[in-house]
């Protein structure tokens, strides 16, 4: 592999980075952990001849608590998220997802912003971000704006990011203590597998197992990660029992629009989505699903 054909810019500050981006726009490709970009380079399909290396931007490596919000700097790696106590306490569903991404080496390098920037419908951190009402902060030399993650993606590999913009921060809402949650991923092996289907769900059950609210997001079953809004609506306010679980899981499998590729057919993905939703909700019903602890140890 000949990397010398690429011009690499390695800014030391965010301002410097935004300056380069302002000048180069789509001539330059952003590179963070490089776990997607390096694959493109190796396959000879990267169009850009210049790289904007973000890895020195220490100011974008942080996880901060701000009231009900967790702010995650764009360059935070999966491993850092997995180790963070606030994320474990208030957004553990994201931790579960991070642990399924690639394997140890990828988790050490890969960043949350990279997963967003890559915009694969199979990105595994994305369904949890959807159910955590995440917002994506985009910054340019001139301005900044915030877009809900559910509006950020336009299709496979397509986002609303303008060529002069950088994702600088992702904010997520803390999940309330006591909520049930699950992240389930179906791949063909236990590590380094691309999702055939993934499901993230946070459900608020009252004492009598009535669904106060439910959020369900699915990966790899549509051009972008999607919330199963119809099924969420159908479930809200109803008593969780085996019949309802079946109804919700069926609803989800109908609501999605998966494609057929070498990893699986449309038909199979629908059935697998049914299975994952069923299994997760069953565990919630039986009280064996995980619950958000919110830092109040020993309560749940």
């Amino acid at each position, binding site marked *: 592999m*000949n990397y010398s054909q690429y011009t690499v810019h390695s800014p030391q500050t965010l301002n410097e980075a935004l300056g380069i981006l302002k000048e180069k726009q789509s001539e330059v490709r952003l590179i963070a952990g490089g776990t997607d970009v390096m694959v493109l380079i190796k396959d000879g399909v990267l169009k850009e001849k210049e790289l904007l290396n973000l890895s020195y931007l220490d100011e974008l490596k942080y996880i901060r608590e701000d009231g009900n919000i967790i702010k995650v700097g764009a360059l935070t790696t999966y491993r850092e998220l997995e180790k963070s106590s606030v994320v474990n306490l208030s957004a553990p569903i994201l931790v579960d997802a991070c642990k399924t991404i690639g*394997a140890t080496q990828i988790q050490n390098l890969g960043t949350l912003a990279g997963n967003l920037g890559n915009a694969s419908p199979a990105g595994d951190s994305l369904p949890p971000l959807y159910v955590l009402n995440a917002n994506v902060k985009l910054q340019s030399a001139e301005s900044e704006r915030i877009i809900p993650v559910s509006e950020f993606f336009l299709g496979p590999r397509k986002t609303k990011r303008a060529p002069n913009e950088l994702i600088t921060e992702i904010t997520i809402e803390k999940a309330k203590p006591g909520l049930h949650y699950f992240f389930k991923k*179906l791949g*063909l*092996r*236990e*590590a*380094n*597998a*691309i999702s055939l289907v993934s499901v993230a769900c946070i459900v608020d059950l009252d004492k009598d197992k009535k669904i106060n609210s439910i959020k369900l997001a699915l990966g790899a079953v549509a051009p972008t990660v999607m919330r199963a809004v119809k099924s969420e609506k159908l479930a809200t306010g109803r008593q969780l029992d085996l019949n309802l679980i079946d109804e919700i899981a069926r609803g989800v499998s109908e609501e999605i629009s998966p494609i057929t590729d*070498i990893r*699986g*057919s449309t*038909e*199979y993905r629908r*059935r*697998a989505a*049914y*299975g*994952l939703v*069923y*299994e997760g909700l*069953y565990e919630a019903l039986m009280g064996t699903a995980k619950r958000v602890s919110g830092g109040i140890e020993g309560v749940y």
Partner: protein
Amino acid sequence: MEEELEQKYKSITRSVPRVDSEPKVSGALKFITDMKIENMLFAAVVRSVHAHARILSIDTREAEKISGVKAILTYKDIPGLNAYGAIVPDAPVLAYDRVRYYGEPVALIAADTEELAREAASLVKIEYDPLPVIRSIDESIASSAIALHDNGNIARHTIIKRGDTERAKQEAYLTLDRTYRTPFQKHMFLEPEGGVAYIDESGIINVFAGGQSPYRDKLQIARSLNIPPEKIRTVDYPTGGAFGGKDDVTVQIHLALLAYKTGKPVKLWFSREESGVAGYHRTGSEIHLITSVDKEGGLLSNEAQIYLDTGAYQSFGPTILDVSIETINGPYRIPNYTINANLVYTNNGFSSAFRGFGAPESNFAIESMINELAAELHLDPIDIRLKNILMTGEEGPFGNTVRHSDGLREALMRAKRSKIWAGALQNKKPWQRNGVGIAVAIKGVGFGTLPDYPTAAIEIATEGKVKIMFSNVDYGQGINTGNAQLVAEKLDIPLNQVEVRHADTKYSPDTGSSSASRSTFTSGNALLMACSKALDRLKMEACLYFGTTNEKLEYKEGRFYYKDKSASIYELAKGLKARGETLRFESTFEVPRYPAPIEGTLEVPHVVYMYGTMLSSALLDELTGKVHINQVEFYADIGTVINPSIASGQIEGGIVQGLGFAITEDLKYDASGKPINNNYTTYIVPSVRDVPDIYVEFIDSSEELGPYGAKGVGEISIIPAGASAAHAVYNASGKWVRDLPLLPWKLI
């Protein structure tokens, strides 16, 4: 048992660390493809972009214009035979009039840098006239099919018969008629095919390349370059994995040709994707069985139609077909059988040797059939096997006398008592189903009736070391360590006095290839003979030294004793050396074999067989169809275990590779004959997290023909994995999957 052995032996039967583990673990070891030589050129291969086409023209003019390009070779530049192939040389070294698989080599480039070589390769213009692509066995044998070779589309066809299957079927209580299929499997060694070649001062072409058969490679190179084999040296250590995929020539002829033509050192190293399209794979199989039993489950007859897809060329195909013939009756007593076996050409890449060599394909069929018969008859799958397996001393299915099958019987008895056979898993979720499966395997050690005369040598070095030399390549399986242990045992010296000279035709005599689970048996025996020869000679030298005659000497711990005097083998070697005598002792072992193959075969039967019994416990998710094998027990009869930890590693590795074959690995070609999944992302080999709990037990057994009673180990555990896993899944789901792999969509 282990304690007893520990008293009996000093070096063998012990799990000593590998002789090359330290440099491998620390990373200090350089693999062959790490080699760099000053002024080395880099090679690239121009490959066919059609799976089947006529070549109309090859235009290299644009490529020649690139400065830094030192050679562009086509078929016209091959001085000798433009063909290779271990058994039948039917594959062109460089295609001339026609290409038969996607990725087939058409031209070679050598240039100053890898990038220039690849750029020049992209500029070679080849005009093709596409021909119909044959994508399956069915398409290949259809009467309307275009012929892929002059001899048609069936590379080899044979029928072997015994008894009267028609009558047996009529008298049978139950006859099942089933078709089983197995996919192509890629070797996926961590080090893709590659190497370096250069010409030394004496004009010898040195070819350093990952391989398994230094001498056969050398002959194939010589044949294509039209130079004497003495002008070629091949070195194969250290190779980063092979599994059969480097048994036939990969880069060796191309490398030698480029070095020969340019006079410069050249490196050629496949990328992972290149290995994916141009490297070999296991034969795909379709096996049709009609098998009959009596009411008690006694096997009466077996009618087998075997089709193996060899892809575009034969390589080892004819002998792979033989092994599939030999294993289609399992280790069972089957009085009547007909085996109709066919090796079929297609445009599905290029099949060659792969661990098990036709046996995993046949085993999936016959062992699944036995499990289906047991289920139909409501018999315990272990009992039906115990009823039918051949006993020691009985006549085998191919006229051979069965030696040592007691290990298999013992293994089945132990399997029956095992925890996983008895118990279903606890704490299952409602959608999880658990099932246990079994399959047994038999595999011959070595080349059957083919003449095999492996030679090995030892040298008593006066500085206190014994050097040992053989041509079996240590590509990770540990043969260097096992052989060092055998020699240390025989010479009664500490292991650290044994130094292994790795596979290199400059030093190593021809012991043949590392394949067919034969290395320990062949080089081990030859080395033990060489040790005896050395001891005999040194004893005479000791007599001279002590001024006595033979009978009065004792030998112990590397020294000859006479009264109160003693001398080490190294001291005595000095005496020999001083008189200019050789310190190198070479011996050739005659591998025991039947004088001729049975009619219709090339090498059936073998004299020595290994056996394995595999229990698998499957956890099936009924809602997603996903299968996880969570526990495996393996009982192996491999004779004396020279190094238990290395042998267990071989068994475990084979199980995991076998479970990949069983569950996720599925090499596919698209409509144009191009492979779809050619890297680790798309071709799903198991990760370490997919590995089940594995329990390995060696059955106490000893094969007198082997070195200290050893047989072989490399292939036995991959063979039953497919049928064992499929049976476990049947017991979990009630579904027989007869076409591997056990992908989730086949199970919901």
